[in-house]
Every structure is written in C-alpha cells, then in structure tokens.
C-alpha cells in the first residue's frame, strides 16, 4: 500500500504538486491521468524517492519513507521496477545487456539462466532478434518496450510506468497495456501508470486519479469518474 498524504512540491517558485493525497492499494493498477505538465512524472518520482516532498509524507506498507537516505532507498528500490518516459536505457549496453543488468546486479543466476530469462521476456514484449542492437539503433517504441522489459525482469513488487504507451502505434499501445495488466496479475504486484491515453487507461485501470494544476481533481474507478458532474473531468475523459 502506498499512502501519499499532503505532498507539496515547488520548483523555482512553481508549485507542481499542491497538497496531493491519495492511497494506492496492493495489487491494483492505478493510473495517474492529467494534461502535459500537470505533474504526473513528478508525483511518480516522489514514490521512488527520486524527489523529496517539500511538505507531506509518503508511506510504503505503513512505513514512512519520506526521511529515508539514498542508501536505504537503493535497497528498497530493488523490489521496484521503473519505466522512464524516454526509456533511459544505457547507451553503452546492447539490448541484451540492458535487460540483463538488474539480474546481474541483484541475483546470482548463471549466465544460461539469465540468457533464458532475457529471451523469454523479449518474446513476451514481441521483440526478437534485437539482442545485439544498441539503443541508438532502435525506434522510440522499441526502446520503450525494451525499457519495460528491464523494469519487469526482476519480478518487482511495485511497478511504475511513466507513459508506457506514448510514442507507440495504437495496436502496440493496446498490446503493451494488456501486457502490463497481465504482468501485474501474474506477479501480484502493484502497478502505477501515468498516461494521456484515456482509452487504454480505462481498459486496464482498477482506479484512476486525474491531476490538474498539481491537485487531485478526481479519484475513483472508471465508473465513478464517468458520472462525475465536473466539467473538466468530462472534457478530459471525453
């Protein structure tokens, strides 16, 4: 369970998160919606300790993680996967090495076992025969899928996906969304996604939040959002 209470964050006088409170339950797929620049990525980075709130508190499984040091966070993050908006694959490693990196770092698997796991996951994301390519040789969408593979390879307990479907074609977006859902169900992990993609968010989300001007504008299941009287929300979810 992730509890965010009264989190406020200001960058150079610009208030990006303004008293945000929400709770994410274990095992659910939770989608953070909002316009570009609303503060979705910033909110996600707070949950993994890449940013610290100016005010407010973040609790993971009842534990207050706001005051943790970077060293404590490093240990904690081994149980998490994080997909960056732009992929953030290592330029100096090929696809295979990128995906294998978390395994090499945090497990004692043999080379054969690692190779098998990487092959399996490449098949899962529909990318075969690219093991030896470097990120610079891949399309944006391919990078994103490789980055997703890297994020889920350790069987994380919490999976964070920053815009997993942006830059993908509609069919691929659908496939990736379904993949994220299947992975979540299979691993029994908690998945938090930021997105602009309303259709796919509704397909897979258990609950959603809409962030507007750094505040929670709406929070609930798809059905609950659809009956909201708020004009912005209706305009946003179409």
């Amino acid at each position, binding site marked *: 369970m992730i509890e965010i209470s009264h989190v406020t964050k200001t960058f150079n006088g610009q208030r990006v998160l303004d008293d945000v409170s929400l709770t994410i339950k274990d095992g659910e797929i939770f989608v953070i919606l909002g316009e570009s620049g609303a503060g979705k990525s910033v909110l996600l*980075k707070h949950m*993994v300790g*890449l940013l610290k709130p100016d005010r407010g508190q973040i609790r993971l499984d009842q534990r207050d993680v706001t005051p943790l040091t*970077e*060293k404590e*966070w*490093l*240990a*904690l*993050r*081994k149980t*998490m*996967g*994080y997909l*960056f*908006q*732009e992929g*953030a*694959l*290592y*330029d*100096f490693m090929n696809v295979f090495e990128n995906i294998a*990196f*978390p395994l090499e*770092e*945090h497990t004692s698997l043999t080379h054969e076992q690692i190779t098998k796991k990487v092959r399996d996951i490449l098949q899962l994301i529909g990318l075969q025969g690219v093991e030896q390519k470097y990120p610079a040789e891949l399309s944006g969408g391919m990078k994103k899928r490789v980055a997703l593979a*890297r994020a889920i390879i350790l069987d994380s307990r919490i999976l*964070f996906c920053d815009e997993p479907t942006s830059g993908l074609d509609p069919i691929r977006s659908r496939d990736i969304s379904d993949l994220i859902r299947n992975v979540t169900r299979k691993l029994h992990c908690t998945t938090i996604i930021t997105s602009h993609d309303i259709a796919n968010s509704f397909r897979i989300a258990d609950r959603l939040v809409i962030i507007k001007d750094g505040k929670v504008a709406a929070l609930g299941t798809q059905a609950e959002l659809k009956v909201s009287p708020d004009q912005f929300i209706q305009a946003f979810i179409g």
Partner: protein
Amino acid sequence: MNDVIRRSVHYLAAVGDSLYFLGSVFGHIVRGRVRFVEVVKQVYEQGVQSISIIALTSLASGVVLALQGYVALTRFGAKDAIAPLVALSLVREMSPVFTALIFSGKAGARITAELGTMNVSDQMLATRTMGVDPVEFLVVPRLLACLIVLPILTLISELIGIAGGYLVAVYEANIPGVFYLNQTLKVIHYVDFFSGFIKVFFFAVLIGWICCYQGFVTNGGSLGVGKFTTKAVAYSYIFVIISNTILTKIILTFWG
C-alpha cells in the same frame, strides 16, 4: 552588491558540493566498492583514445626542444648538453603538463559528455531506480582510470619525446647515439622522475574530479551537455596550469 553576494554563495556551495562529491568517490574506493571490470574498460577507452595524439605531440616536443637547444647551446659551445636539456625538460615539466592538458581535452571531455548525457537522458536516475549507486557504477571507474592512465601516458610521452631528441641529436647535431643515450640515463635522477610524477598524480586527481563532477551535475538537455563539457575542459586546463606553478615551486623548494 546583492548579486555579488548571491553569486559568491552559489560558488561556495558548488565548491562544497564538489568536495563532498570527491569525498564520496574516495569513500567508495577506500571501502573497496570498486568494479574492476568497469575500471579495465575505462582504462582501455581513455588510453586508446589519447595515445596517438600524445605520441605525436611528444615526438614533436622532443624534436623542437632538441632543435632549439642545439642552436642555443652551440652558441656557448655546449652542444653536448642537448641530451640533458631534452631529458630534464621533458621529465620534469613538459611531458607531465602537456600530457595532462591533452588528456583533459580528450578523455576528460569524454567523461563529462558521457556522464552528462546519461544525466539528461535519465540514465543516472534509472541507475538509482534499479537499486544501483551511480557513483559506484559510473563515476568511480572513470576516476580511477584517470589515475592509472595519465601516469602511463606520461611515461610513454617521456620515452617518445626523448626519442625525438635522439633523432635531432644524431642526424642534425651529429652526436653519437650511444653518447646521447648514456647522457640521458646519467642525467635523470630519481628526484627528477619523482617530481614529475607527483605532478602527474595530482593532475590526474584534478582532471578526474573536475570532469566527473561536471558530468554528474549536468542538466539542461543537449545544450547543457555542451556547456558543462566545455566548462570541465576549461577548468581542467586552468587548474592544471595554476597547480603546476605552485607544485613546481614547492617541489623545487624541498627537493631541488
């Protein structure tokens, strides 16, 4: 006035931050948190990248030193002193400084650009989200490699520079080659060699520190990478040249 104060505070904060950075890098090294495979990769990259240009400039320096020395020394009827002139100039001063300057422009710039690019494309953050310390994984190997590569390059530079002097001595000044080499070996004492290498080691720490730090704090997209890389190289030049002056004075005072 306010602006001056603000800028000074900003500057002091940056100095403090970079010192803390250096401390944490050495903290990792002291605690043995060093990835040797990464170090070897970096040593290879930095070495291969700089070796040819350093060989070329060293050869040219040795040749020029000998040519000018020949002209000047002949006026005093002391052309036999070419070998000591070339050897001492190179070992005590020119090879350490020139190699450090070229190394900053090649390997140093590469370090800042690589780390900076990783910063602006979230690879640094990604490292942290994967539970890996970016200082340990990305910075320590690069800085350690500087400490290994720069002394080796300097040694190579000295040997090639002396070879350049040899060519001039033998073919221009008609000094017997054996005599030249004998003189060279006789004139270089431990203290000359040693004083050169104190400098080299100091420059290596400076360059590694400046270039890794600038890369580590790069922001502002691809423009930022360019800006911080230029800054890293400029700082490296300035600090190498200034610290060389100070070190030379100190070394001469204590060891002569």
